[in-house]
């Protein structure tokens, strides 16, 4: 078996990192992927969908671990069914599963994975250290994995995916088990990897909100079908109505409720965003809606933080596509 010479540079010079056509995967009578046609471009791409949507199957095909029942797929210009090993040398993978050899120091683990992905031994040691510093674990790099917190272990998973200088990184639920602060830091880190080092990222998540926050592109799957696909800013373009954010004022506890009641009294549809001070007011005539909001807020003596033209949310697109 000869050593494989692979280049970190994209083989066809194309912008598309992953392309698929008529991609179908069938397990017995179950259709895991149904005739997908997509093109994933450079940057950060969110792969969203509920459990069983086909995200993991798509990732395993991208890595060349499964051959599709029908259709074609190209990853970094290569065909996974014939160049799986070459693709996997260029792709870093951060699994969802959060179990690793507990007694192994983080630096040894990341170095070992860099070597397995093709780095020379001497290079792997330095790169492991650099990757751990990058993810914020420089000072902790000699600690055994078993003594690390969930957040630190998620960072180690990211570091091992990065250490061999991949062209593309696949991350499976990288914020799983993190608290809000850790989640923000992890998302910022993923964004940084793409912006500063031009490493493309395919982020698998069931959390639409975090995909909206950091992704350039979205691939939304539902029961193996492609329900939305494209640039996030194009998909979430302007929608009817306005979004209003009110300032929470202690001596006006009912302001938001009164504003909503006033808007509904004039026939507008209002959606409240949980317990926050944000509401979406729907209506085709945006000027009319904005005037009504202004009047309702004035009458209720509510303090307005922001009124903006309403944008469609990924959740709306996903729901519309799933119907």
């Amino acid at each position, binding site marked *: 078996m000869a050593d494989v010479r692979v280049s970190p540079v994209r083989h066809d010079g194309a912008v598309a990192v992953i392309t698929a056509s008529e991609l179908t995967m069938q397990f017995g009578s179950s259709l895991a992927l149904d005739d997908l046609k997509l093109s994933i471009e450079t940057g950060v791409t969110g792969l969203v969908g509920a459990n069983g949507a086909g995200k*993991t199957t798509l990732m395993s095909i991208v890595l060349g671990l499964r051959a599709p029942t029908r259709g074609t797929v190209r990853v970094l210009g290569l065909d996974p069914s014939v160049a799986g090993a070459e693709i996997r040398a260029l*792709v870093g993978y951060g*699994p969802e599963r959060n179990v690793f050899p507990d007694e192994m120091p983080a630096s040894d683990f990341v170095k070992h994975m860099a070597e*397995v992905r093709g780095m020379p031994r001497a290079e792997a040691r330095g790169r492991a250290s650099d990757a751990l510093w990058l993810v914020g674990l420089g000072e902790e790099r000699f600690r055994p994995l078993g003594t690390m917190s969930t957040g630190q272990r998620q960072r180690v998973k990211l570091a091992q995916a990065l250490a061999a200088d991949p062209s593309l990184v696949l991350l499976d639920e990288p914020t799983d088990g993190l608290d809000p602060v850790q989640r923000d830091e992890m998302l910022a880190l993923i964004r940084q990897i793409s912006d500063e080092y031009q490493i493309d990222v395919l982020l698998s998540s069931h959390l639409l909100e975090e995909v909206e926050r950091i992704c350039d592109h979205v691939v939304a799957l539902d029961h193996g079908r492609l329900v939305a696909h494209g640039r996030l800013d194009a998909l979430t373009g302007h929608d009817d109505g306005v979004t209003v954010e009110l300032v929470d004022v202690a001596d006006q506890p009912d302001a938001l409720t009164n504003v909503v009641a006033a808007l509904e009294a004039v026939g507008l549809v209002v959606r409240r965003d949980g317990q926050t001070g944000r509401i979406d007011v729907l209506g085709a005539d945006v000027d009319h809606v904005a005037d009504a909001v202004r009047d309702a807020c004035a009458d209720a003596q509510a303090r307005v933080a922001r009124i903006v033209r309403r944008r469609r949310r990924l959740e709306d697109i996903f729901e519309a596509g799933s119907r």
Partner: protein
Amino acid sequence: MSDARILDRGYRRFEGTRSGVIGAMRSVAWHTARSILGLGRTARHKVFPIIVMVIAFVPAIAFVAISVLLKGFGDELRPDYWEFFQYSFVATIVFVALVAPEAIVRDRRDGMFALYLSTPLSRLTYVVAKVVAVLSTMALVVLGPPVLWFLGYTFQSQGPDGLLGWLGVAARLLVAGLVICAVYTAVSLGVASMTSRRAFASIAVVFVVVGGAIVTDLLVNVAERSESWRVLDPLGLALEVAPRLFGDRSDDFRAVGTWQVALGCLGWAGSGVGLLTLSFRGRAAV
């Protein structure tokens, strides 16, 4: 005070050549071999490897040392070359049952197997890397003491006559050792691949190798079945390769034909490899 300062550090792109599948296999094999021997691991993981090495090498070291210190002492007790392997028999059983299964059981338990499959490795190349690692470390236990013994005799001028004679004995020791390692590795990994718990793996391996010897003994000595049934004893059968290569036979296998020994070894090695391959074939990756 030193004038040294860090000019640049941090994550950077790699422009060199990647080592591909061979490099991945080499890395996994090296990492596994170190892990089996307890190198770079906590003290409790070094206990069994140290016990195995002590049991394996002490008889050889003691015999060579005594013969050096007391020249001519024990010449009449000197074992045949093929008998060298029998002195590390206990160490080999401990290694096969308690140490070798660690090579694959651990990866299944801690998720490393799935992670390895996201690298240039495939299921097949992963298994080959693991087999190479176990085979190499087992060779230390199985081949190390006979080689030490043989070299000890050679330096005391008690070895084979002439260069050709010496090379002939060395080659036969090497082939016998490799066949024994191959059979034991296949059996140990094949059986261990059925579970993700090390304790269960060790019990299962003991059940097969020691149980095989007991069942064979009962069949032949109590039920008075044919001596050919001894091929069901993987431990004894593999060891029998050594006397056959030196034109001799051990007492237990005296009535078993050499072709039966060869076929039996092939059968055990093939069964182990088959079990190992089947076990990893359907295992989920990503």
